[in-house]
């Protein structure tokens, strides 16, 4: 096809295909699974193509409809965007395969497919957007699709969690939108690149940075704004929990990082960045302790997301640590996304086999009799802790390396201590399965689901070999200010 080598074309099709799939699945819910299957394979191929494009040709900024910013909207296909698109495609592909065995073929459950494709389209649009207002619209799409996915399992607990999530999400969006208004009042442009050139440090800029950061921190569930996450991710259907924990919280983190790399680069003072990193470390410990004291499987895994999101915020102090110091935290996104999606999928298998009960004490029996799921749980848990031979190990290793070489060794202490805490709750989760005792396989679980869960666990191992390639891709991100 003519122009297929053009970066705009890859970016455009990465928006068009999931959107078209979502529209079709909305019109014909009964054909949802087949539409979703075809769409997810296509989007995965397109994400690979887009990443290859960035890899060979370098980053590209393109304007839609031929209107150059500030008049029109620009899309950015650079290393950071391509990496996030790839992570979303990888997790999406596996969650899709898992859902084929999870979503019942009745009318109600099948609404999952359209909502999932909407979420995917919204996330792709979010990762590619180069415009602060356009990012707001993608955030709205993400929060609507996510809320519906949380509520899909029905029941009072899920509806309450969904409602609370919607409220926090809207509050976050409002704060973000206020920041957009402040930026436009001062600079008269909305494009990330143009805003980065304008820069500025005044009171209004600081207020915009505060509003947008707090709004996005609430959406990313950074401690102490995390209280909505455990009930929402804990009560959603298993594939939805996997998507929400693996991808949706990362979307908010991605925008926050993008803003601090461009629009707010002049405000990236050490104190501010240390504050963000310090809040991340508090999240690591608070989430870890809550995981350790959880007595049910899904809340344990959900609180672990609160902890792991904390690590991502080390990107901010590392921005100032030297060129590309933030790359390590972005690579951790891939490690956490694969491990966490796998954990939620495994938790879904165990919960269903155990008749809907996910108390740790009673799930152990099922774990003993279901080696495929338990093995996947073990590998994903090891990756979460950062044990060798997993992508989690590579990610934590790069993170430690960045901390030590940049002379900020006290962050390394936090990373190691947080890793020990992760180890404690993962062993608490897995330990009972290795103790002798009765085993029962419980209710039937489709073998497809156990197979896909194990396959994703193996991906957690294989991705360990993609460390240097991943970092090279992320490095293809033009940054003018700190972190470049």
């Amino acid at each position, binding site marked *: 096809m003519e122009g297929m080598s053009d970066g705009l074309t890859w970016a455009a099709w990465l928006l068009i295909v999931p959107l078209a799939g979502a529209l079709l699945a909305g019109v014909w819910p009964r054909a949802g699974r087949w539409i979703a299957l075809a769409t997810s394979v296509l989007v995965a191929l397109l994400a690979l193509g887009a990443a290859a494009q960035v890899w060979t040709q370098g980053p590209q900024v393109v304007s839609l*409809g*031929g209107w150059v910013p500030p008049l029109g909207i620009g899309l950015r296909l650079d290393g950071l965007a391509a990496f996030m698109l790839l992570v979303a495609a990888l997790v999406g592909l596996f969650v899709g395969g898992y859902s084929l065995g999870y979503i019942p073929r009745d*009318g109600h459950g099948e609404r999952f497919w359209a909502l999932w494709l*909407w979420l995917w389209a919204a996330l792709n649009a979010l990762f590619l957007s180069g415009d602060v207002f*356009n990012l707001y619209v*993608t955030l*709205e799409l993400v929060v609507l699709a996510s809320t519906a996915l949380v*509520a*899909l399992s029905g029941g009072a607990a899920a509806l309450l969690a969904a409602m609370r999530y919607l409220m926090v999400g809207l509050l976050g969006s409002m704060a973000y939108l206020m920041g957009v208004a402040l930026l436009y009042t*001062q600079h008269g442009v909305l494009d990330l690149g143009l805003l980065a050139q304008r820069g500025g440090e005044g009171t209004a800029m600081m207020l915009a940075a505060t509003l947008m950061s707090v709004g996005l921190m609430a959406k990313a569930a950074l401690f102490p704004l995390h209280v909505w996450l455990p009930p929402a991710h804990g009560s959603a259907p298993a594939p939805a929990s996997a998507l929400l924990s693996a991808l949706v919280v990362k979307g908010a983190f991605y925008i926050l990082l993008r803003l601090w790399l461009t629009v707010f680069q002049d405000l990236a003072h050490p104190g501010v960045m240390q504050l963000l990193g310090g809040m991340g470390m508090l999240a690591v410990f608070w989430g870890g302790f809550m995981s350790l004291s959880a007595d049910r499987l899904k809340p344990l895994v959900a609180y672990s997301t609160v902890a792991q999101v904390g690590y991502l915020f080390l990107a901010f102090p590392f921005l100032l640590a030297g060129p590309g110091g933030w790359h390590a935290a972005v690579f951790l996104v891939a490690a956490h996304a694969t491990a966490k999606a796998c954990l939620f999928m495994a938790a879904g298998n165990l919960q269903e086999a155990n008749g809907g009960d996910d108390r740790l004490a009673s799930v152990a029996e099922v774990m003993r009799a279901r080696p495929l799921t338990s093995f996947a749980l073990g590998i994903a848990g090891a990756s979460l802790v950062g044990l060798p031979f997993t992508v989690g190990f590579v990610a934590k290793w790069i993170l430690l390396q960045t901390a030590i070489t940049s002379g900020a060794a006290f962050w390394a202490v936090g990373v190691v201590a947080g890793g020990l805490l992760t180890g404690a709750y993962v062993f608490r989760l897995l330990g009972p399965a290795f103790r002798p005792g009765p085993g029962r396989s419980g209710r039937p679980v489709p073998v497809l689901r156990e197979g896909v869960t194990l396959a994703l666990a193996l991906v957690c191992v294989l991705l360990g070999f993609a460390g240097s390639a991943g970092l090279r891709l992320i490095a293809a991100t033009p940054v003018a200010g700190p972190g470049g």
Partner: protein
Amino acid sequence: MNPRPLSLLSGGLSALLALLLVSALWDTPVHEGVSASVAGAMGHTGVAHPVTAVLLDFRAYDTLLEMAVVLLAVLATWSLGRCDTLPARPVQGPVMRGGLRHLIPLAVLTGGYLIWAGGAGSGGAFQGGAVLAASGVMWVLAWPRRPDLPAPLGLRVGVTLGVAVFLAIGVAGLPLGPGFMGYPPGWSYGLILTVETAAACSIALSLVLLFLGGRPWRDAEDG
């Protein structure tokens, strides 16, 4: 938590935020924004009204996603369950129904005019759609026992139409030259009017269905 300290806390925070916003904006000169570049580019778009040019040409992609937000809100509401039977009882007597017989055609005419007027002045798909939706809501309220809605498939196609038409026209820009979400030169007016009409119909239908607040058919009737 006791609701009283909670409301005091949120009230205090809101007041603090308002104070900060006022102090930050007090001496910030208002930027003229993109009005100069919009004025400069008006000759290259097919419509005469700058707001319509921004919404449907320069920032068409934003508008596509905003229409998608409305559609997704409908799909999300449908995923929650069926709609309740309408609480309102039919109003007795001939006045309301007789009045509506005259009002609804007028509202349809006004809505249609607003869509068409968007090309040259104030108006457009969202305004026209809102007027059409208002007539739809009145119609539903007047005959609550007999919500004579189209078949489920028709409803789903109807709410999707606006986004689908806009996306199709946006995709057509790829082989035709101007790129994704661009109009071929000379075609913008006709294409913008097509998008606005389809969008207004979908927005109107979506708003009426959101008013019903749930899926007006059973799970078994999915096609």
